[in-house]
């Protein structure tokens, strides 16, 4: 591996100073499960690595005032093991369940997953469906960006030079909501998704859809909400047929590509197959929550 200097600042202030001091020769290091590989392959060649591992305010999951706040350095393993997230934000737990291996989940972080801007990021569709806001901090101060606007293209994000993602803020889902994320991949473990489907449903007492959110990843260059499909199901009874029709609408909104992993056509077919399936699981989770209550 190339020579480099490793920094481990213990405050955001020190991290900003290092970022400013080393400019483009520096890279922020979160879990490193992608970046260290890229450095080994020399597709990225930073002279300085600024690890965010020891900055206290990036490490916690906090739930208060109707909002979930996940620090950027929270690992996928912490999310996987959080009862609160599994109960109240099930689709996010789904997203990390089969992300890499235990070894990877122990170090890889949600902040790293989002900031890489990889189309295949497993947390991308769930955070888009959840309407997350990203707290970006910089020497000039803090700003908040809707996660949908954060993703700008494959590997491209709204993170400006000198900025650090501090936290992911997620508003609580409406009462009685159910959610699900399906990662469609060739293997059950240790694989990247061919398609990511996130669905959130809020039914009323008569199983009529009050609100629906559908977010897709790998169905276009960046993760997006299938807004027409969402509008199509809203106000309709939540039947399999309605979801099959909604999936067709979502396909018309999507623009998947053919890559070495699979074809655009296959991805479209799987959008049709998996949106109803994700909706079914989300709905089942609603019922479960009601029965418990």
């Amino acid at each position: 591996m190339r020579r480099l200097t490793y920094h481990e600042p213990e405050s955001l202030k020190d991290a900003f100073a290092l970022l400013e001091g080393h400019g483009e020769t520096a890279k922020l290091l979160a879990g490193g499960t992608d970046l260290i590989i890229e450095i080994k392959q020399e597709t990225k060649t930073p002279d300085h690595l600024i690890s965010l591992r020891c900055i206290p305010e990036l490490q916690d999951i906090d739930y208060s005032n109707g909002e979930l706040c996940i620090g950027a350095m929270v690992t996928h393993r912490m999310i996987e093991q959080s009862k609160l997230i599994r109960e109240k934000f099930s689709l996010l737990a789904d997203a990390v369940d089969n992300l890499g291996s235990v070894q990877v989940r122990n170090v890889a972080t949600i902040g790293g997953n989002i900031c890489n801007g990889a189309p295949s990021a497993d947390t991308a569709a769930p955070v888009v469906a959840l309407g997350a806001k990203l707290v970006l901090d910089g020497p000039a101060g803090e700003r908040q960006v809707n996660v949908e606007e954060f993703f700008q293209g494959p590997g491209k994000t709204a993170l400006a030079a000198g900025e650090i993602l501090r936290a992911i803020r997620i508003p609580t889902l409406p009462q009685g909501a159910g959610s699900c994320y399906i990662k469609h991949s060739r293997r059950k473990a240790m694989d990247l998704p061919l398609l990511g489907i996130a669905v959130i449903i809020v039914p009323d007492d008569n199983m009529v859809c009050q609100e629906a959110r559908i977010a897709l990843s790998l169905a276009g260059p960046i993760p997006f909400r299938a807004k027409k499909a969402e509008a199509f199901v809203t106000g309709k009874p939540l039947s399999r047929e309605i979801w099959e029709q909604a999936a067709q609408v979502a396909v018309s909104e999507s623009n998947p590509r053919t890559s070495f992993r699979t074809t655009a056509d296959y991805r479209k077919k799987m959008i049709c197959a998996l949106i109803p399936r994700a909706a079914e699981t989300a709905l089942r989770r609603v019922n479960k929550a009601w029965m418990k209550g």
Partner: protein
Amino acid sequence: MDERVMAVKISFKLNGEDVCINIDDHITLLDMLRDNFELYGAKEGCGYGECGSCTVLVDDVAVNSCLMLAPAVNGRSVVTIEGLSGPRGELDPLQKSFVEKGAVQCGFCTPGMVMSAKALLMAKPRPTEEEIRKGMAGNLCRCTGYTKIVEAVKDASEKEVL
């Protein structure tokens, strides 16, 4: 960049013993363990976090040592396969189960397998078969077909002392 970068001094707990070393920043934990401490149990299979043969415990959780930089373990605890056996070289019950169940063929993946299983059993002493398979999904074995490995972990989990 300046090639005369000074090595940094780090100290950490290695297999229960306090150690101190000067190490270059770009050296991975795996290379440091093998080249500087002559602990050859952890292996480099892929070097990209796919195969798990470099698995060690850092602060009691399994990590791929090929993807972690050595200076990142400063002040932490690292346990390798060499740290599992007792003071007189007696095997850990988990290692005994691997031997008794015939879970080892060529042996290249075995140290990583054992360390992943150890982390799993430390966090969850009585895992189901599904939990074992999921917990070990990041460790590839090209010989055994995994059946004996899962049996060994199950066997160890049924022993009294771990």
